């Protein structure tokens, strides 16, 4: 098993708002291994971005870390001083932002924006930083990097700008790349290119990637492991195959069922009923219970713990308790699981 580079332990984050205290992230734990891609999946507002911002130390001013720790290189990032955090942020942990159209300084040459990051984290000369910036531009697939070094952001298309944002993230050879919905603002053909680029870079540099998205299609494409978040909690986490083909949490069922596939034969696409709860004074029990057609009385009484399904696969639902009644998952999920088992048995037979 690969070594851990990052470990988040029992992290809770809340926001002070006019309406009250919003518990955006509630007691989540996960780890990131060297070279792997972990996808954080969930609807907007489920706490996935907040989790990453806590890792980056970029929480908004009204946010408060209620508890937990984020271990990186044997240090708790949450306890680092401002200046120590600055050298980690951007240097060892870098972030790719959602909207490339607004993420670049419109009045600064893009080359300078990259070189500036190189010089922030490495003791190199101006010329060497420039050289490095040109290399990075070439690495992310910008043609004629020498010439384009001197251009301003508005002279690039959205996809190209996202490549530049990625180049900035790579400037200091980070160990962890956090990609916050890096393809959401792009059109579909661009999305695939950017995903390929991220995968390729990961292969070249061996960095670990935390990939935030609400798009399961993207997840299937890039992730080694998947963590599904709902209402500030991780409700299911496991290897990508396990979560995709043997999901256990009714919310994951809902997510998967609402994703169009080639084999979908229904006329209408499934949608999870209801809306996510507000996280101001959440009611006791499972936050998903009100929207869950398979909810048990137990879901209303207590928050389910993460039950293990396999060594690597966990899901937080009382349905996994041995006392729970047997229920039938939706048909499409059953079909998925069958197809998966068949494939696995074929694979093990062929070995």
């Amino acid at each position, binding site marked *: 098993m690969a070594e851990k580079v990052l470990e988040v332990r029992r992290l809770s984050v809340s926001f002070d708002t006019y309406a009250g205290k919003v518990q955006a992230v509630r007691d989540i734990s996960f780890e990131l291994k060297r070279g792997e891609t972990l996808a954080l999946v969930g609807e907007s507002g489920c706490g996935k971005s907040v989790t990453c911002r806590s890792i980056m130390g970029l929480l908004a001013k009204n946010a408060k870390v209620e508890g937990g720790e984020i271990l990186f290189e044997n240090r708790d990032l949450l306890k680092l001083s401002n200046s120590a955090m600055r050298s980690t942020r951007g240097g060892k942990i870098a972030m790719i932002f959602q909207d490339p159209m607004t993420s670049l300084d419109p009045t600064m040459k893009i080359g300078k924006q990259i070189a500036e990051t190189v010089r922030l984290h490495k003791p190199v000369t101006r010329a060497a930083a420039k050289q490095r910036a040109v290399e990075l531009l070439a690495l992310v697939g910008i043609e004629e990097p020498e010439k384009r070094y001197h251009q301003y952001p508005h002279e690039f298309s959205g996809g190209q700008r996202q490549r530049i944002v990625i180049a900035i993230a790579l400037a200091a050879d980070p160990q962890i790349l956090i990609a916050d919905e890096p393809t959401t603002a792009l059109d579909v053909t661009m999305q695939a290119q950017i995903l390929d680029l991220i995968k390729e870079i990961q292969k070249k540099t061996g960095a670990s990637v935390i990939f935030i998205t609400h798009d399961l299609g993207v997840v299937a494409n890039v992730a080694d492991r998947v963590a599904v978040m709902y209402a500030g909690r991780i409700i299911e986490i496991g290897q990508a195959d396990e979560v995709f083909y043997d999901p256990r949490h009714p919310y994951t069922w809902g997510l998967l069922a609402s994703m169009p596939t080639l084999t979908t034969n229904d006329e209408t696409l499934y949608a999870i009923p209801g809306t996510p709860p507000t996280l101001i004074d959440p009611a006791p029990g499972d936050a998903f219970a*009100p929207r869950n057609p398979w909810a048990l009385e*137990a879901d209303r009484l207590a928050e389910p713990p993460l039950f293990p*399904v396999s060594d690597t696969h966990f899901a937080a639902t009382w349905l996994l308790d041995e006392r729970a009644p047997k229920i039938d998952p939706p048909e499409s999920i059953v079909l998925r699981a069958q197809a998966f088992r068949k494939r696995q048995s074929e694979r093990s037979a062929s070995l």
Partner: protein
Amino acid sequence: MMEYSEEIKKAASAVPDSAFVKYQPSQQEAEPELPRALSFLEDSWRKLRKNKAAVVTMILLLIITCLAFLAPVLSPFDPNEQHLSWKNLPPKWPGVSIDGLNGTTLFRGRRVDSYELAKVPEGQCFLFGTDEFGRDLLSRCLWGTRISLIIAFIAALLDLSIGIAYGLISGIKGGRTDTVMQRILEILSGIPSLVLVVLMLLIFEPGITSIILAMTISSWIPMARVVRAETLKIKQMEYVQAAKALGASNVKIALSHILPNISGIVIVRAMFSIPTAIFFETFLSFLGVGMRIPNASIGTLLNGGYKVFKLYPYQMFIPAFILCVIMLSFNLFADGLRDVFDPKMKEG
């Protein structure tokens, strides 16, 4: 079955076996009732109330306006009534013995009771003192504020009407009309308003009307610009397009769709144009081309006070203080209104 950790066992043991049945939602757990939607005014008032500076200045402005408009009732003297033997008396407050408010003046290092020297009868106090003609400054300040406020309010109202009309016509008509009207604006805005005002004042007979007219001539331009820009924006909105498609006339569109939507911005701008008008009035009167003596306005009071301010600083300070309080209040209140109605607006 997997071996469960202690933690899970503990969590599981807290839940009774009986709970592992399908959850039946009870009737009471219906959707919580949504709070009642607030009307535009209610919402604005709620936001404005949070801005303490705006609330304080609003109250202050109400008080000042009331005092100014009650000047005929409140003034202890006629503002133009001269008591030549009582001239340049410092402020005297009954029962207050602080230097500066007790009617004494520093004369060759000693405090001298000016009231005694001027043979003012016992019990006669001038709260703000008197000026070089022995006129009561309190009365003059009340009347002066009244005139300055009247000028400012009327000027702002005129700005508002001309600016809205011009901007609306230019914005709605569009095309050639708009181009010509914009050129006119461009040329007019090349003339410094100060110069325009001064020229106007040289031509008209000095007085309230001419000051108001002179100020209006230059100050409606920014309002017209804002209204036009907003009109163009709203004109593109689908509901306006829809109204047009249904055959609504330009006038109807302007009155029922555009005007209500720009009211916030217009109110804020009008609030900002009041202190500008007050400033111009005092500025012109201070220079000696505005209100003519003996009529009291804040500007003429400052002008009179400035002439003697080395000897009798209170004659300048009191109207200056009143002016600053009024200007500051209007600006702070307008800032508060802007945050409520149009948080994105940058220009004041």
